């Protein structure tokens, strides 16, 4: 790999752009394939560009054979984002664990006593109302949203915005009873049954989690599961290289 290629891949990540690096295995010749353009030795090769963009769409790196040449397509997609609404105790476990798992983490809470950098070292903290913060951040299909405040006036606007977007995961802390009341409020606010069904609530896998850190594990376990199933569905059965 060329040193300039390392720099280009880092730059793409900073801008949250997807990129595929195509490497010819015989001589390590490289081509960088972006959604709209390509740079390098195969930049004009339509078959290679098509294969690279397919790999990008399903987020799966693979080795392909084109015109008798083996080419490795390495897909670099921007890290998934986790937006945590509620700078509460569980969030203090969830944020660093999610960072370890390569999530780009943002914690949102309008309450100044909670949303401090010292409670969340190394994580983006926004002292905003969730719906306003979401407008600044922009929700997309590689984003997960978890609400943890237990306070309808903080959680509900966040859930409404999240359910109207195409985020891949929505989770809301709260018991079944709390979740039932949430359904009534959100239905009144115009959320359909189908939209409401996207909420994972009570949040997390049922692993008997009690402490804030254990609850964080159950939430992350569920997010990993949902994301993996979604990528499997997008990619179809795995093609095994010959």
């Amino acid at each position, binding site marked *: 790999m060329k040193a300039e290629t390392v720099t280009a*891949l*880092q730059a793409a990540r900073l801008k949250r752009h997807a990129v595929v690096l195509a490497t010819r295995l015989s001589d*390590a010749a490289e081509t960088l394939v972006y959604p709209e353009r390509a740079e390098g030795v195969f930049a004009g090769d339509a078959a290679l560009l098509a294969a690279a963009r397919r790999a990008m769409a399903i987020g799966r790196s693979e080795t392909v054979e084109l015109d008798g040449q083996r080419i490795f397509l390495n897909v670099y997609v921007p890290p998934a984002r986790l937006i945590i609404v509620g700078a509460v105790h569980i969030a203090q476990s969830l944020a660093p664990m999610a960072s*370890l798992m390569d999530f780009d983490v943002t914690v949102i809470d309008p309450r100044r006593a909670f949303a401090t950098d010292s409670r969340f070292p190394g994580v983006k903290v926004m002292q905003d109302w969730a719906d306003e913060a979401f407008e600044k951040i922009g929700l997309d299909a590689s984003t997960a949203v978890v609400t943890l405040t237990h306070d309808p006036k903080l959680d509900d606007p966040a859930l409404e915005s999240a359910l109207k977007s195409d985020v891949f995961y929505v989770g809301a802390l709260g018991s079944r009873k709390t979740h039932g009341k949430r359904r009534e409020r959100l239905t009144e606010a115009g959320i359909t049954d189908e939209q409401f069904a996207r909420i994972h609530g009570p949040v997390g896998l049922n692993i008997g989690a009690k402490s804030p850190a254990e609850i964080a594990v159950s939430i992350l376990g569920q997010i990993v599961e949902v994301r993996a199933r979604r990528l499997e569905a997008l990619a179809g059965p795995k093609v095994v290289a010959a």
Partner: protein
Amino acid sequence: MSDALDVLDQVGRWKTSGKGVALATVITTWGSSPRPVGSQLGVDDTGAMVGSVSGGCIEGAVVKEALAAIADGKPRLLDFGVTDEQAWDVGLACGGKVQVFVEKVS
């Protein structure tokens, strides 16, 4: 923190500091392999590692080839797997097979 791009961050830092650097990448897998296609291991000219291409089974052999790639600049394609015991010194305890591409960062 643990993924391919963080390997590239370390590779970039090594390169900037004037070290010889190689990058190893899992390019195909068969059966149950410990790390998915695209997983990367960066190696500097002292043998220091960042990232992984297996659960620790083949890193030693990969580092050896990485140091050779740093020395001669040529890319290498390595095969590992328990079914090829005769041909290869190092195998995967899990029973899978992986192919690893090793190249110098130039």
